[in-house]
């Protein structure tokens, strides 16, 4: 029979665990909870991140997929290669995961990672990311699209051509109660003016079932997370990132987002040197119950362009950890 665990034992175990994480250069840049669920380094593949698509009928007819959920674009393994320098490469090795929109105002590209919960509790999503608008060319005409301004030698016109990126979950507990937790970085508003703020929706995302029931019908470029701009609320102080002046220089940013699936709440968001307390950010729940989604735990990331220029969200790596 062993002796009871003391506070000192717990502290030593914590130090030992951190020391072991720090001994691994790839993990030492992360702050995982007690159990690492996934650690996706995109230099070695897509690791289960795939294109989100809406649901289809029993015959596999993709015409039955909602218009706004059928063109979220396949994620790409990107070497972050640009016209001016060639291959930039990722933070870890050569390849990052790239989520790329079409050059169509309002188009959204979404990549999703599908898991389930073995237990309720704290869940943390961490990533190193960057975002870019596509550089201009004669063919894409980006330099004359909405948002393009004068180049002042510091702020590049393309920076105002990046709309927003979003990190979100799709969660359903064992009683069929389904909800999303969502954080969006809005770089510009719909008129391509800098807003540079974090936002959250106050309504749940419209679902294929709600469309089938005649409750919603969205167009191809509607904002599928929350279609009405009035349903997005800012949280905390605005935050500027290191876009690094031009669309071809890649600087990686740290993001850590923690939620609680027991309490069904947001906890906090850390992005580089800022920590946002999210405990008062509401989590809208669907009124109806869902079958076939027991213990669903999905993560998605999206890029949304507010002009006719492709927008890119790059992830070097993702770590999801839990306290189960």
């Amino acid at each position, binding site marked *: 029979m062993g002796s009871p665990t003391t506070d000192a034992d717990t502290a030593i175990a914590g130090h030992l665990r951190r020391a072991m994480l720090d001994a691994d250069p790839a993990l030492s840049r992360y702050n995982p909870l007690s159990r690492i669920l996934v650690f996706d380094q995109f230099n*070695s*593949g*897509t690791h289960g991140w795939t*294109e989100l*698509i809406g649901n289809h009928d029993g015959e596999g007819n*993709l*015409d039955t997929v909602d218009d706004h959920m*059928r*063109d979220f*674009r*396949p994620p*790409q*393994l*990107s*070497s972050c*290669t*640009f*016209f001016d320098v*060639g*291959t930039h490469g990722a933070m870890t090795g*050569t*390849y990052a995961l*790239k989520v*790329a929109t*079409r050059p169509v105002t309002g188009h959204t590209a979404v990549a999703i990672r599908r898991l389930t919960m073995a237990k309720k509790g704290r869940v943390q999503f961490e990533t190193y990311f960057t975002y870019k608008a*596509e*550089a201009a*060319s004669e*063919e*894409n005409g980006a330099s004359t699209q909405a948002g393009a301004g004068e180049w002042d030698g510091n702020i590049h016109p393309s920076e105002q051509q990046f709309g927003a990126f979003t990190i979100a979950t799709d969660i359903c507990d064992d009683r069929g109660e389904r909800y999303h937790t969502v954080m969006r970085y809005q770089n510009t508003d719909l008129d391509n003016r800098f807003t540079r703020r974090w936002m959250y929706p106050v309504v749940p995302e419209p679902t294929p079932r709600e469309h089938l029931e005649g409750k919603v019908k969205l167009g191809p470029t509607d904002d599928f997370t929350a279609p009405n701009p009035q349903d997005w609320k800012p949280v905390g102080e605005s935050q500027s990132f290191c876009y690094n002046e031009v669309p071809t220089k890649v600087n990686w940013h740290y993001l850590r987002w923690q939620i609680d699936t027991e309490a069904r709440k947001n906890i906090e968001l850390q992005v580089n040197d800022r920590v946002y307390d999210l405990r008062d950010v509401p989590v809208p729940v669907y009124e109806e119950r869902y079958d076939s989604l027991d213990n669903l735990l999905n993560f998605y990331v999206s890029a949304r362009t507010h002009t006719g220029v492709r927008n890119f969200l790059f992830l070097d790596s993702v770590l999801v950890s839990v306290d189960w």
Partner: protein
Amino acid sequence: MRQSQAAVLERYTVLNGDFRTEPYETGWATEARWFVRVLEASTPDTKVVLTTQVSPDGLHWCDAECPEQVSEGEGMVSWPVREFGQWLRIRGSVEGADRSVKVLIYLTLKD
């Protein structure tokens, strides 16, 4: 184990006239194969001419050294591509002013 990836570049898209698929990054792969499924065609003899294009930067494109493909009516055409560099796309054209096709376009990649 070798890496592989399949991407759906167009899904039930109705095409007419000239078109180009979205740029897709392929720098990690050694071999690629296109699959173009024509689900519906305006007429059984509606032709689509398909040309593979390559790019060093995702912005500027030229035709690859790869035979032009032609699909006719409904069905699936496929062709392989190698030594394609960093990006791939299709430049295509539906022949006939009043003709259209509804397609699924897959790009499959392997290292």
